[in-house]
């Protein structure tokens, strides 16, 4: 059996990669994907904990249901987010995050 720590390390790595992607990349589409990556990292740790905290060989199902919710919400967020990005591209002809500073000027 793979120990819990391995899952958590994987989850942490994924989360860090996602965060680093958001910080480093300019393209909003990529940033968006990195965001999804971070959500997935959270999901992995949730499921890992569900297994680790289970009793009598049964996982804690509440947590697994929660992770399904997270996935569902992520899907909804993708629908809205992609629509926003498409609208943004139509308006600005660019999806660079550094270009989105009209309020500042």
């Amino acid at each position, binding site marked *: 059996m793979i120990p819990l720590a391995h899952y958590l390390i994987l989850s942490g790595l994924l989360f860090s990669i996602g*965060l680093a992607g958001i910080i480093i990349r300019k393209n909003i589409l990529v940033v968006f994907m990195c965001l999804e990556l971070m959500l997935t990292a959270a999901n992995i740790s949730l499921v890992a904990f569900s297994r680790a905290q289970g009793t009598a060989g049964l996982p804690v199902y509440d947590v697994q249901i929660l992770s399904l919710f997270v996935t569902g919400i992520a899907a909804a967020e993708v629908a809205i987010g992609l629509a926003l990005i498409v609208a943004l591209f139509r308006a600005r002809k660019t999806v660079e995050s550094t270009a*989105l500073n009209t309020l500042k000027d």
Partner: protein
Amino acid sequence: MMQNLPWLFLLLPLLAAALDWVLFSKCSKTAATLSILSAAATLALCVAYLAGLNTGAPDVYTWMPVAEERLSLHLGLLTDPLAMRMMLVVTGIGLLVHIFSLGYMKGDTSNLSRYFAGLSIFMFSMSCIVLADNLAMTFIGWEMVGFSSYLLIGHWYHKASAADAAKKAFITNRVGDFGFLIGILLTLGVFGSMNFADMAGKAAGIPAALLTATVLCLFCGAVGKSAQFPLHVWLPDAMEGPTPVSALIHAATMVAAGVYMLVRLQIAMGHAAFTDTACAVIASVGAITAALAALIATQQDDIKRVLAYSTLSQLGYMVMAVGLLAGEAAMFHLYTHAWFKALLFLGAGAVIVCCHHEQNIWKMGGLAKRMPLTVLCFLMGTCALIAIPGFSGFFSKEAILDAALEHCPVFFWVGAGVAALTTFYMTRLCLVAFCGSARAHGAEQAHEAGASMLLPLLILAVMAIISGYGFIADALVPYAGFEAHGFAVGLPFYVSLGSLGLGLVAALLVYGCGKRSSDPLAGNALSAALRERLYIDEFYDKVLIGGVQAIIAHIIEFIDAAIIRGLCVQGSAWLTSRFGLLLSKLQGGSLRAYTFLSGLGLLVLIILLAFNF
């Protein structure tokens, strides 16, 4: 209900003023009619009261209730003889001036509704002073007459000199009113009440120094309003207003309010309240004013200015009488002076109108032939003013001189000297303006004044002659239980006859029969100084306004510019904007920076939680 009839004295003119101003500002005839009607109605009411109508004590309204009763602000009316007889002078002369104004202002292009509204407001405020039963209400009326005087002096406000004169009158009065206000508060503190009726008999237990301070502070108000030295400078300038206004406000009534107030206080507080020091100061100020003004009047060329200085000098007489504790004589002179000085001013007004608004007496001349009736009326007023025996002014001036001789002979001799000067300058005025031949085009075309101007003149001329005789004075002089004291031929009589003769002869010698075309006394330093009003105005201008006020203004300007504007306002604005600039660096608009910072924050949180810091 009936007992509140005296409130009509205040309400009618106020109503007329409000209607004139609000409804009939474009319809000057209606406005004039309304004002005249209100003046006539108040005069009728006043006559009814003097004839014995008694409606009992009018209600007292509490305007601003304060928990402690004596501090509350009450509005109450006095209907005693002092007030009612004074009201007769105010409303009587007021009505005549209203009627005279119709003729005087005919053809004037300014807004006459405004003029008559001003007159009505003045009647309201003057009644407020006269009828007030406490000092607070007097003060309200006091400020209101100042305001209406400001309005009327500045009636021709497009003329810079009129606007300046209005401002000068108002501001000079503020100086006196400041002292008056302190005096009222002192009275409240010392006597425990502002009500005249409550002051009686309380003076005995009060330290003399405190009484002196109170009375002198109250006297400050009279110095301002009655234009006594050193605050007399506004009155001659106030002649910029229309002449009927000068007659009503700046000769007969408002400027006498100071004397009225002092006499009212003297009666209410008792003679004990007027300590020797206070009396000496009051009498000296009066005497100085009387002498200075009479001197200056001898070298003035403007007919209205001569009369203005003569008013100053007569007011000085009255104040001197108050200072000599002869309130009775002061009110007697106030009453006769009101009639004959109003007559003189209205006569001067008629002369000015008929000479096409020429006020310089050296550009008149020969008017006696062209407008005999007006000139005759004017001469009646002159006779009363220079105290020719038999005219009203003679009796009242005699009363003051008697009182002066009795209390303090110095003031008697000052009064006698002023009487000689008065005769001199009035004779000069009459000789130059009325005798000889016309010296300017305006005077050549002069003609008799219209009926609306002649009628008031004739009535006033009659009053100027008869108002001093016992049978009429006893009933009308604003002083309870006044009796024209038996006239005795004594030292005062001979002295005043002497000064009368001296003045007459001197003026006749110098000015002949009006044949001269310029003043033979002019051209020397003394005459120049007198023409420049003894440089008192200039002194105020240079030293007080240009010196003291300028220094204070500089200091205040520095505080304003450096501390308030520089440090407080601009400094705090600078600080805020710098701080804002600093904070704005945090919100650079860069998505990546935000993420980095929140990631960093998350990391810090995790570390804090994980390692239990």
